């Protein structure tokens, strides 16, 4: 991709002088600014000169080959389409189980569990902070009994399940394993994913319980446990999604997420694990926002950055450690409450960007999600959007169709360079845990989100239906309204559970958990016994709160 400079300047300079300038004098460009949604300035034209420093074999290479810019599979989507994994959960376990049966019947190829806030925060529904929250944003899971109800009639040997759970990830994962065991499924062959990414909780989503170092230990315990017992399980889904939703730029999402990934690898190595024993089971989760090309460049850059860091920084030898696999969700934050049907179009474009970026799994948001959790109908349209891309658009016929585009390759390189700069800053602070303790990523994101909001207020960034093209007769749509029925059901079940189980066994199992937490054993082992004794999520988390304390952040505005 080299170009030769001639005495009259580069080809691009000649074009600017002889072709562009006369045009601009006659008809000037729109006012701009011509920037991505992240505020990155974009040139009007990219040519071979912009990618002159890029060597195809060294820097890009073919699909399935290091550093995987063009994808981790040599056949792209011709071999296997991405997994269409729609995130769902609300109310009681029975209600959510019904939604899963619907999604499977509609052609969904994986499950993805959304838990309610009490479960995510490790609180039983009778805690005072759970007022009005039970079953609202996801399904309420208090104990093994609820997990049995959630997967009734669904064979865990045959489907993969992703669970968006972080602080109480070990407890919920232990419940899943026990349900699998009850169904006769083999731990050695079942697969799925737990999000289990606490760093982005401290940075962005804020569903933390324990202090950072204790939280990191729970995660490395899962790495070690799974390497031995559940070898096909994806032990972590290092997530940029929430970082982006909290207001970061595309570059910050990429840089912070991958740096979180490096932190987990370092902690795993420090805990005595071999890189190639646990890194192949790490996966990632990115956002797909509205700036089409910037997002595609982000995914391509991510694969290369990870491959090079694993090989060079950690000395990984297994190509499966180098290959970054990721799930994508379209940007919830981009959905508008105004003219909600427009969200179908936004989501389709974002989904297409994820596919052109080579995502391995995808969730498409529903048109009503700026207002509520989706209805059965809107959730189906979201899934159909993926099926239309997969089966009608033709984009799956060829691997990395945008590879070699001057613009895409330059933007990919810019994302890589920008990420390395952020990494240097974080490395200089001592690592991501230290950077979080100093509030560094939190401040960067808060600043970016404020700048974006200001740009929207000034109409430099147009949001159709919100700050431009507003429609006065915008009619409300029917939404899913979740009442307090689930809360009543779950509170009653909690009371009944505490009467019916073996109280002594619960107490002994929780005491054993605390003993291991104070020492250095693997916490998954006593947690499995707590779960079998029907200890609740709240009880297990409280037992660890007593040992490790709770994290409190200093808010940054």
């Amino acid at each position, binding site marked *: 991709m080299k170009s030769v400079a001639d005495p009259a300047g580069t080809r691009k300079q000649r074009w600017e002088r002889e072709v562009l300038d006369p045009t601009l004098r006659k008809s000037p460009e729109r006012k701009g600014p011509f920037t991505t949604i992240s505020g990155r300035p974009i040139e009007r034209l990219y040519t071979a000169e912009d990618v002159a420093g890029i060597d195809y074999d060294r820097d890009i290479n073919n699909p399935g080959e290091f550093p995987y810019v063009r994808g981790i599979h040599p056949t792209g989507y011709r071999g296997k389409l991405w997994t269409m994994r729609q995130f769902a959960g609300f109310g009681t376990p029975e209600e959510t189980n019904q939604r899963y049966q619907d999604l499977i019947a509609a052609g969904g190829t994986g499950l993805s569990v959304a838990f309610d806030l009490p479960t995510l925060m490790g609180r039983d529904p009778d805690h005072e*902070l759970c*007022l*009005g929250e039970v079953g*609202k*944003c996801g399904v309420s899971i208090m104990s093994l009994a609820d997990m049995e109800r959630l997967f009734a009639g669904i064979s865990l040997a045959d489907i993969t399940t992703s669970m968006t759970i972080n602080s109480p990830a070990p407890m919920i994962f232990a419940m899943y394993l026990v349900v699998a065991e009850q169904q006769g499924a083999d731990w050695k062959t079942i697969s799925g994913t737990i999000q289990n990414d606490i760093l982005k909780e401290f940075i962005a989503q*804020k569903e933390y319980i324990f202090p950072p170092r204790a939280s990191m230990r729970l995660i490395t315990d899962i790495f070690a446990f799974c390497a031995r017992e559940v070898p096909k399980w994806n032990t972590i889904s290092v997530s940029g999604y929430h970082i982006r939703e*909290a207001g970061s730029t595309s570059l910050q999402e990429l840089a912070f997420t991958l740096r979180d990934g490096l932190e987990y690898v370092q902690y795993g190595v420090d805990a005595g694990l071999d890189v190639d024993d646990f890194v192949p089971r790490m996966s990632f989760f990115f956002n797909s926002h509205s700036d089409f090309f910037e997002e595609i460049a982000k995914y391509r850059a991510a694969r290369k950055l990870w491959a090079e860091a694993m090989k060079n920084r950690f000395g990984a030898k297994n190509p499966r450690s180098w290959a970054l696999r990721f799930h994508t969700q379209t940007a919830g934050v981009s959905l508008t409450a105004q003219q909600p049907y427009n969200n179908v179009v936004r989501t389709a474009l974002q989904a297409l960007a994820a596919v052109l970026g080579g995502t391995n799994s995808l969730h498409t948001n529903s048109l009503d999600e700026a207002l509520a959790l989706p209805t059965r109908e809107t959730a189906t349209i979201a899934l159909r959007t993926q099926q239309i891309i997969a089966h009608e658009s033709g984009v799956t016929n060829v691997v990395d169709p945008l590879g070699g585009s001057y613009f895409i390759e330059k933007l990919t390189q810019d994302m890589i360079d920008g990420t390395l700069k952020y990494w240097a800053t974080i490395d200089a602070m001592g690592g991501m845990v230290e950077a979080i303790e100093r509030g560094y990523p939190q401040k960067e994101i808060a600043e970016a989100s404020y700048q974006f909001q200001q740009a929207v207020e000034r109409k430099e960034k147009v949001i159709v239906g919100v700050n431009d093209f507003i429609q006065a007769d915008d009619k409300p749509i029917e939404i899913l309204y979740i009442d307090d029925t689930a809360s009543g059901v779950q509170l009653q079940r909690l009371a009944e559970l505490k009467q019916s189980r073996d109280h002594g066994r619960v107490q002994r199992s929780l005491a054993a958990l605390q003993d291991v937490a104070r020492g250095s054993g693997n916490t998954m082992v006593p947690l499995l016994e707590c779960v079998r004794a029907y200890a609740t999520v709240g009880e297990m988390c409280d037992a660890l709160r007593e040992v490790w304390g709770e994290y409190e952040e200093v*808010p940054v505005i």
Partner: protein
Amino acid sequence: MSQKIRVVIAKPGLDGHDRGAKVIARALRDAGMEVIYTGLRQTPEMIVAAALQEDADVIGLSILSGAHMHICPRVVELLKEKGLDDVQVVIGGIIPDVDLPKLNAMGIHGIFLPGTPMQHIIDYITAHARARV
């Protein structure tokens, strides 16, 4: 105006999505108000205690989780108990249309849904904040 409007911005309940609360806190501060941000996971009791201690004119609640019909009545009730009925309560977040009349009936009229311009919120608070003596 001789004295700044004092606003407590709070995140009640278990939800950690604080982007909106933080952007609004900063916008109100930049508009010349005195803003106290409580941080996350506040009970109604903690929020009203903060309003009392900070001598707040306005309490802004950011709620996206669907718990507003439990949290708002409790905050309004506690304000009455403490004799702080004249403190304006405004809310921002995801609030279904069917709940709007019920919130109005509690005396909550400043309800800002997704996509509300920041200037609109600043103007509303400036017009409706309890008059400082």
